[in-house]
């Protein structure tokens, strides 16, 4: 028996989601065995909500043959070690969540437990001093991590800030080189097949009809195929993720590019700053229930550090998730599948993760139902994990200066997150499942950064004398501080890396 492979894939919508999908599928399937077409109307602008990546982007680059120095040059990218959060747990507080580990396990017990014990003494030390990535970020330094597990330079990872519009161009060039065919047109109608309700073809404005076997919906919140056509519902998460609007504005750089994103909370939402090589992209994400668009615009414009280079652009967003992100022969990728906001840079990651899963569960022309269900189950788990981690930032706060924060503080959260908060608050425990993206250090950074100090630490820590712990922690801190000082500045690191393989 021969199984029937899929010979034709149609991606509707471009943007980062569409072009990342096109690049990945083309590189996996190859143009000989499968035609990949992407329908994008030229006037579809790119919302610049997703300009920060997390370290998994390196896997995407490696797997699909993207040269990182080339990517950096093409997108004016900077390195990203994490995010600096300001005014989240309380006004005046700040912390860094980086992709780096705090300290190291001792006798198989998490570092936080030793730190918590030390904290009870007179010489308390900030947790951030035990992660090289935090110390380096604070000093504006960057260096590529190493693989050697014995080195302190192996304790962190990195990602990029990149210009979303240039990233789309870069991906488009890459995909076209791999044989993806771009159709500049608009979909005006969708034709479904007879008994199974599969999508047969899409009708274009020009009159052309494009048929395919697998359709990928990258049309953004609208969900032209998955929603409008296949009537797949959308679960509203605004009760947990209280925002519905974003304002974007570009400014000149006001200094050296920072190796991290800034996320500063305000009365009805928060603002970000994404440093690029040539400018800074700023945004304000808020709930229109708590602040008007005009007032939100003023908040954003009044807080800009550099001279503005563009007029503010308003984008409406819908936090939530499509009930099923794969239905029949249609897979939704990007904000057509769901959205948890730009905090923690989950946008590009969720696209990447959906692509990885689609390849893992790549169908044949039979589209077995069990295969689709398994994909949906994995995606649901992934989304729930991202959602909970983002909710944590809103929920865990002592802020009581506005109705918005009163709401966040008091809101009930998903059961799983409530358990996590309780586990950490009582005993400093961070459960970690094999499929989870954010690791123990990430949860630690946010919990501690937003003011949750566990009531108790692992009792096994009491085996070690206080002086011994103090000595150990001091030397760790010392070692990390020296390692950070030996790193080049972020600006020099960008320059050096971008020069790699450059023709000029």
């Amino acid at each position: 028996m021969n199984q029937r492979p899929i010979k034709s894939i149609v991606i509707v919508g471009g943007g980062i989601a569409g072009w990342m999908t096109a690049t990945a599928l083309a590189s996996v399937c190859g143009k000989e065995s499968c035609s990949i077409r992407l329908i994008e109307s030229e006037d579809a602008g790119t919302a610049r909500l997703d300009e920060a990546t997390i370290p998994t982007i390196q896997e995407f680059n490696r797997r699909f043959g993207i040269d990182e120095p080339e990517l950096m040059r093409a997108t004016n990218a900077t390195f990203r070690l994490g995010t600096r959060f300001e005014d989240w747990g309380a006004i005046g507080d700040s912390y860094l969540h980086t992709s780096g580990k705090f300290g190291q396990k001792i006798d198989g017990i998490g570092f936080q437990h030793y730190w918590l014990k030390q904290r009870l003494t007179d010489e308390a030390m900030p947790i951030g001093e035990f992660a090289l990535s935090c110390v380096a970020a604070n000093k504006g330094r960057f260096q590529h991590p190493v693989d050697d597990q014995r080195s302190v330079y192996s304790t962190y990872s990195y990602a990029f800030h990149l210009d979303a519009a240039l990233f789309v161009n870069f991906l488009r060039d890459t995909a076209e080189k791999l044989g993806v065919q771009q159709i500049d047109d608009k979909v005006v109608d969708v034709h479904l097949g007879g008994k199974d309700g599969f999508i047969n073809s899409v009708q274009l404005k020009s009159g052309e009809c494009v048929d395919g076997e697998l359709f990928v919906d990258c049309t953004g919140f609208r969900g032209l195929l998955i929603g409008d056509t296949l009537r797949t519902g959308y679960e509203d998460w605004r009760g947990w993720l209280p925002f519905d609007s974003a304002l974007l504005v570009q400014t000149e750089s006001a200094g050296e590019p920072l190796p991290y994103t800034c996320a500063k909370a305000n009365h009805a939402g928060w603002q970000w700053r994404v440093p690029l090589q040539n400018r800074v992209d700023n945004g304000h994400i808020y709930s229109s229930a708590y602040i008007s668009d005009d007032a939100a615009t003023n908040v954003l414009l009044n807080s800009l550090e550099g001279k503005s280079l563009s007029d503010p652009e308003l984008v409406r967003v819908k936090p939530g998730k499509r009930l099923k992100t794969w239905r029949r022969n249609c897979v939704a990728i990007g904000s057509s599948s769901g959205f948890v906001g730009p905090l923690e840079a989950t946008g590009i990651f969720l696209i990447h993760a959906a692509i990885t899963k689609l390849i893992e569960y790549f169908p044949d022309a039979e589209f077995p139902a069990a295969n689709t269900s398994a994909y949906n189950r994995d995606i649901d788990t992934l989304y729930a994990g991202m959602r909970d981690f983002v909710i944590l930032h809103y929920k865990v706060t002592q802020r009581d200066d506005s109705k918005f924060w009163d709401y966040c503080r008091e809101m009930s959260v998903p059961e799983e997150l409530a358990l996590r908060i309780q586990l950490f608050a009582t005993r400093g425990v961070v459960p970690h499942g094999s499929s989870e993206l954010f690791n123990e250090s990430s949860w630690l950074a946010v919990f501690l950064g937003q003011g949750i100090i566990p009531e108790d630490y692992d009792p096994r820590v009491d085996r070690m004398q206080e002086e011994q712990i103090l000595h150990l922690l001091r030397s760790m801190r010392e070692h990390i501080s020296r390692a950070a000082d030996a790193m080049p500045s972020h600006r020099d690191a960008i320059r050096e890396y971008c020069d790699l393989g450059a023709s000029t």
Partner: protein
Amino acid sequence: MRQGAVSSIAIVGGDISAWAAAAWLANSLKGLDIAITVLELPDMVNAEPMQYTAPETLRFFEPLGIDIKRLINITGATYRLGTGLHRLRSEREHRILPFGNSGTDIGHVHFHHFITRALLRDEKLSLNDHSPTAMAARAGKFHGRANDPSLPTLSYGLNFNAAKLTKLLRDNATINGVGIVQSRITSARLNADDGHIESLLLEDETSLAADLFIDCSGEAALLIGKALEVKFIDWSQFLPASRSIAVTAKTDHHNIPVHHCTATDDGWFLSTPLQHRTACQFRYSPEHVSDELAAAHIERFVRELGPEALVLSNMPSGHRQYMWHKNCVALGGAAGWIEPLDISNFDFLMSGLSRLTSLMPTLAMQDSLATLFNREMTEQLACVRDFGLLHYYAAQWRDTPFWNATREHEKPDSLQQRIELFASSSRICLEEHETFGRDTWAAAFLAAGITPRAYDPLLDLVNDEQIQQYFSNMRRAIQEAVRQMPNHREYLAQLRH
């Protein structure tokens, strides 16, 4: 000592679970000034007279300072490379379900798709030909990690005698300061406010108080069940062979370093090769087979019975709704138990202990710690249940009262989904807390006669000639390597020197 810290732990039981708990806790809580006492109940026997562990479990011995070589010599253990499955889908079928991986992934395509494609093409290829562990098992060979670095690494667990290991663990615990009280429980005194166990009143009219109680009383579940009234979730509708009769004997499969599981008309015949003889048990459902008939059965399976008496035991598969409740943590049979077709319950016991120490509570007995413990333990047990059920699925074609009854119950949804996914696309979805890896699941699906209708379509994009050549070389290399490995029995003999 910190305020609010647990300062005393009482372990109730007397079989391998109690002493494993005592040894483990004594070692991992050493230096914390926590008094650990075992209330050793008389007449506790090991419900599973032999234990056959998965590879993962061996890591638990190192923290106890128990060297594996010493353990093997003292307990008469043998190495175990997987399970021998016999007469599952037909009376003549014999196959090996190895531990560890087979082949290598082809790009991002998992290796087993290469095999399921071959099956669809009627090519004679098997997963096992690509597994050094399976090939070594078939040839009766074994070599350890330190033996010869040029030979491929094998995945192995152990087969051992439970009574002997119990004694080893008991000695280890007592050397590490664990106290022993020998008596029976007459009643448990619960705190009127929070319902925690305060103390146990004993037959000798003394009482035993502790901050934390560990219930290792086996199926009786004296604390978690009897005192705290946590209900038992019965899975014996899925796994009905709850009764067993055990003997030691000489058998035919003695030299193959696996644990054997044979389907029969009335239940399962299990045999575990130890160094000097083979431990055997016949598992059956009391609804269909009487103990007398079972005793007669087992003699038919073995060549020569050992001198020990027959041991009967009864243990339905299932688990307590909460394995950790109030200030009581149940481990071993008191917490949950699965018919030991593939692996014995020692693995489940050890992962419970490892979880308990990383979630060590204070006197407040935080609910969240118990919630997490219960969730992960139950999920792990359900995965093992589903795995064992696949063997039932394979043998269900028999038209006998025992097998007919097993067909009447629907499979759990979780297993149904796994089967449908594999059958339609060769894919395997792993849960967070699995005991078995992807390749072991693939082997078990195939052993159960589930031949997928399709394989990963991306496999067809890879140059076929190249991968055929690659795996043909791999098969040859494995055969050659296995030839060079020592005989399992010789390897064991050499450990004694």
